[in-house]
């Protein structure tokens, strides 16, 4: 009885699916091409990671020549450079999380205290600008501003300090990188917080004022709780993208003199794979990073569902 019922149900649902496909065939045909596109250009390379386990020869088969198992993984586990780039990646990612994540929140709170809407709009408009510059132009500006005869060194010289060749010194790289990231994202990152701020009920402030709370107390007890959901959602997204530290920017800003602190996993993969032609070795390192990244995203999404009832999918 049970079984026949199930079979019947599945027949019904199958025919149901068929009728809905027939009814909406135009919608399905629209999405067909993008799906094929995605299979080739996004899922294809995922499958292409097979060359991390197979010896790849440029110009040979795109899935490699022969199975070598974990040889390339053993190789990077015994590669001292790997540990260095791994550490550098985590240090930069950590610095970005603790500095460039909270900064836009503070910036939004400061903007929120402005009485003049005109001045507020001026500050906002100016602060978005770096977001639209190409990373190549950004790097170019950094090189100019920090050049030996550039404005920063001129200022240092006029205060009686020694000039510093910023871009050649490994001890300066992290400071420069984080500052540049802050410069690019401060204004842009504040948009969602500013939107959340305008959504806070004005009556709450009214009530607090009647109770004699000053502006600082209002900020602590009304404003910050008001934007807390936004902060949590963005924090979770940030944790998910923890390892994505802007590899193109590193590639433009670093040089062999600063590899010690500047070289990250992605730039190492680029050099090993595309500059030296060790495709399989580079893929193995890249795959390792992608898997850590995926675990972080899944973990962040799980946290998000538990804490905020909001998940990415």
């Amino acid at each position, binding site marked *: 009885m049970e079984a026949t019922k199930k079979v019947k149900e599945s027949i019904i649902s199958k025919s149901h699916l068929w009728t809905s496909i027939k009814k909406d065939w135009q919608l*399905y045909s629209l999405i067909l091409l993008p799906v094929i596109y995605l299979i080739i250009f996004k899922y294809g390379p995922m499958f292409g990671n097979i060359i991390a386990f197979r010896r790849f020869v440029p110009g040979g088969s795109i899935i490699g020549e022969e199975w070598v198992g974990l040889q390339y993984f053993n190789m990077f586990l015994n590669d001292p450079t790997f540990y260095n780039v791994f550490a550098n990646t985590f240090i930069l990612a950590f610095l970005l999380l603790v500095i460039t994540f909270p900064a836009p929140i503070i910036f939004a709170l400061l903007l929120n205290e402005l009485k003049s809407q005109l001045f507020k709009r001026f500050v906002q408009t100016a602060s978005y600008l770096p977001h639209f*510059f190409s990373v190549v132009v950004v790097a170019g500006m950094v090189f100019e501003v920090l050049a030996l005869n550039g404005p920063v060194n001129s200022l240092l010289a006029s205060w009686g300090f020694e000039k510093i060749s910023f871009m050649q010194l490994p001890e300066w790289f992290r400071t420069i990188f984080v500052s540049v990231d802050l410069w690019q994202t401060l204004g842009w990152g504040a948009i969602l917080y500013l939107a959340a701020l305008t959504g806070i009920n004005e009556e709450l402030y009214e009530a607090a004022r009647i109770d004699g709370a000053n502006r600082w107390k209002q900020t602590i007890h009304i404003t910050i709780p008001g934007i807390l959901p936004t902060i949590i959602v963005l924090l979770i997204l940030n944790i998910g993208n923890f390892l994505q530290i802007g590899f193109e920017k590193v590639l433009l800003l670093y040089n062999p003199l600063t590899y010690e602190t500047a070289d990250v996993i992605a730039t190492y993969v680029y050099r090993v794979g595309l500059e030296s032609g060790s495709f399989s070795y580079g893929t193995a390192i890249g795959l390792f990073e992608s898997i850590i990244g995926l675990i972080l995203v899944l973990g962040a999404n799980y946290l998000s569902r538990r804490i905020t009832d909001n998940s990415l999918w």
Partner: protein
Amino acid sequence: MKQSWQYKIFRVFNITVLMFIVFVTLFPFFNIVAQSFSSEAYINSGQVSLWPKGFNVETYKQIMSDTMFWINYKNTVVYTVVGTIISLILSTMIAYPLSKTRLKGRRFLTLFFVFTMFFNGGLIPNYVLVTSLGFGNSIWAIVIPNAISVFNMLIMRTFFQNIPDELEEAAIMDGSSTFGILFKIVLPLSKPILATMMLFYAVTHWNSWFPAFIFFSDKELFPVSIYLRNMIKGAEATVGTGATAADNMVQISANIKSVTMVLTVLPILMVYPYIQKYFVSGVMLGSVKG
């Protein structure tokens, strides 16, 4: 309302801090503009910060008469236009079906797209795929593999979802097909989102440099971003793709680099008043989950 003296002090402090932020944000840009109009001697002695010294427009004339600069500039325009069209069409083709809650398999398809946001094949498998398809040294290497931004697609989907169903139902009564509805009703109503998406994609394509850097070895195909990149990193050796040995020899002056940077960002600056308005509304839309 009476303000406490602490709050008054805070407001002065706040305005000062924000003015300082504005100054720091805009400084690098004004610095390169000033350098681009200055003479080399003043730049080298570190005298140029916000105002040009030894006013000079010769470098502008020089760069603008460089044929390679214009070839590369024109390439960027072509890549941006073609790339934006492809991206817009593909995104619409995904976003519209996914905006229909009645569509069977919608959840699965959405996940299928969203997953690629968080996990990608990585640099080298992508490189192998694109080169083995024969896309190297062709426009397709840069406009096809990065055509879809899933994030942008989700913003579009949210917008389509908010179009009242009644409008479409009325069209169905009149005998319109799905395609008819899409072209006659949905797309005309979606002009604001299409404009926003167009700007999103256009800025991304305009600023793109890395795909061209790894896939192109032919100088005539470089976008202007690679022209600039090779100037900035001119003194360094590279893969062999992207930069050639000849320009590794030359140390390029700060003045020339600044002129190129100004010319590269000029189109972005000209549309900036529009893009920033559209971008802000786009980001807001993106934050509303569908």
